[in-house]
């Protein structure tokens, strides 16, 4: 029983990471169709933020540094995304496949920049006292650091949901994504909306960076470790669908945890990909797909 529960916990915490790194992509890739290979480097940029804060401004206040890092990393990664969109990507919205190459190049540039600024060695973010330790519930030991990630992803989801459904800016964003031409003739500044979308999506990657800094390595390669999971969640979930992304992340995380428990880490991963391949045979548009009668889906 406790094995069953502890693997459920592992699966859910894994899902929370999948979801957090993939959430930003549901905007930039899912809604705008930009295959943003640099999304991982926005995560990386976010991961460096708590390191910088802990070693400079808040040298003796590690907990404060981590909490301050959340909004700061959102802005830092968001601005990186905004610059990328305004300078390069807006010129190539009719060529989605080219964005793959361009953003791949950008990701290499950002990795090299990280090496130049921070050296090639990994950096360490000190886990603040309030995130050390664990709770034992029904024989499952849950570490505070992982629970923090779960809470963070729930808050991020709530924020995104409020933004998309309750705020005018969010409604404008959905309008542009669902039908760009109609939105434009209705008087929406689609260019500015694109910028906002990219800022938001990239900023979420920054927040994901702070979360993964607590549990994994912080270095120039941090982004590459998570980019695949991010795309997987968006593709399986259905392009740009929050609900789909949540279901996909939970399904893949839990599947991975259980298969790994009974076999090995490598087979757990293989099982996830085998499942994704099979699944996409039957539902090529993902778990939740927008049904439309228009020719431009």
């Amino acid at each position, binding site marked *: 029983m406790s094995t069953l529960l502890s693997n459920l916990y592992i699966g859910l915490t894994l899902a929370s990471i999948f979801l957090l790194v993939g959430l930003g992509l549901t905007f930039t890739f899912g809604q705008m169709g930009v295959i943003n290979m640099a999304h991982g480097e926005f995560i990386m940029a976010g991961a460096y933020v708590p390191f910088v804060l802990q070693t400079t401004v808040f040298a003796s206040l590690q907990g404060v540094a981590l909490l301050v890092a959340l909004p700061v990393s959102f802005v830092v990664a968001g601005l990186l995304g905004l610059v990328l969109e305004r300078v390069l990507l807006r010129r190539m919205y009719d060529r989605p496949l080219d964005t793959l190459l361009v953003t791949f190049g950008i990701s290499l540039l950002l990795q090299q920049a990280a090496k130049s600024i921070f050296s090639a060695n990994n*950096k360490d973010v000190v886990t603040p006292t309030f995130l050390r330790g664990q709770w034992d519930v029904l024989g499952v*030991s849950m570490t505070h650091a*992982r629970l923090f990630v779960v809470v963070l992803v729930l808050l991020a989801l709530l924020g995104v949901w409020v933004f998309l459904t309750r705020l005018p800016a969010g409604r404008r964003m959905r309008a542009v994504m669902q039908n760009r031409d109609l939105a434009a003739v209705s008087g929406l500044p689609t260019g500015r909306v694109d910028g906002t979308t990219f800022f938001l999506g990239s900023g979420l990657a920054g927040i994901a960076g702070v979360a*993964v800094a607590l549990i994994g*390595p912080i270095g120039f390669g941090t982004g590459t470790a998570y980019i695949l999971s991010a795309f997987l969640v968006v593709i399986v979930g259905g392009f740009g669908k929050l609900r789909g992304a949540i279901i996909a992340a939970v399904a893949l995380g839990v599947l991975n945890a259980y298969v790994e428990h009974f076999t*090995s*880490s*490598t087979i757990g*991963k293989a099982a996830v990909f085998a499942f994704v391949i099979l699944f996409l045979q039957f539902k090529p548009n993902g778990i939740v797909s927008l049904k439309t009668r228009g020719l431009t889906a």
Partner: protein
Amino acid sequence: MGAKGSWRLPVAGIVGAALLAAGCSSSSSTVETGGSTAPKSEAGNTVKVGVLQSLSGTMAISEVAVKNSALLAIKEINASGGVLGKQIEPLVEDGESKPEVFATKAEKLISKDKVSVVFGGWTSSSRKAMKPVVEGTKSLLFYPVQYEGLEVSPNIFYTGATTNQQIIPALDYLKEKSLTKIFLVGSDYVFPRTANKEIKAYAAANGIEVLGEEYLQLGDTNVQGIVSKVLAAKPQAVFNTLNGDSNVSFFKELKAKGNTTAAIQTVSVSIAEEEVPGVGVDNLAGHLVSWNYYQTTDNPRNKAFVAAYQKEYGADKPTSDPMQAGYNSVYLWKAAVEKAGSFEVDKVRTAAAGVSIEAPEGTLTIDAKNHHVFKTARIGMINAKGQIDEVWNSGKPIAPDPCLDTYSWAAGLATGQARAECDKVK
């Protein structure tokens, strides 16, 4: 970042085979023109040597420091009069973290630049890619990193540890401390799998119980499953052959789960001074590592080395085992050349047998037959400052035994090509 990877083995094999063919044909043309394998690099007042490490790509993080320490040794030797009266001229090439590039660049250094010797390589796949090149052209390679053993080449000198100078002493130490229930965790490629095969053979013969064996793909940071398996098995120690970023997640998770070294001790063979800050001193303090050298190794030769290295490359730069081996490689070659009185490969190779130097890690002697080096094994404990304190050493340099022929429990581990190579030098 650790060592000896071979995650591109198939590619390396194909490229290696192709280059073996290429190497054969080019060496036969050398015979026609001159009949001698002596490189013409020593013309004039300089002698050319190749330094071939990854300066870009995923391995650059580790290998740049090895290149730097080799260049430091060359600079020091030149300042004190060079080798046989000639100044050393280093030609630095980038292996790009790709085995096939190592093979091409090694061939370029040997055939085009006519270097007397090549210093370089880190991953096992890079070494295996260069091996047919240096064997085909009958030239010299000094390889500076500890590796999985079971290899002998007439043209390669191995200046890092082989398994009986790193892994077996670590197991002896665990046994001495009565930590006899162990769990094996490693990255999923040739070095950890080979090492674990040897560890399991040792364990079976020495009353050590192996409670589990788990692998993570290189770079994988999803460690929760493995850590929970380790904790559930309740071992006394974990023998860790994880490489690179996986170590960060592994030790963070172990710490978060409340593990202390009193409950589960770990011994790592791929974490050195350079990697400690990246994993987090907090997460590593009190854990064990096994190498032949630490920055804290206490002798005058090492104090001079650390001071010279930090003067050249920065006071905050740590020194570690592999870079120290890169530094020693140059001095070992110099000693062999001076004993031979010549830069000719055959003479240097013969003269190298029994050559000895005083290195930062202690006295090093080249084994007459297998081209490995006598080294002192040292177990270290990571301290709160991120440095490593020696807690045990083997007392005297251990004779290298890459084929593990002197261990009865290891019978049958060397098979195929490894067996054939080992039998040649028995």
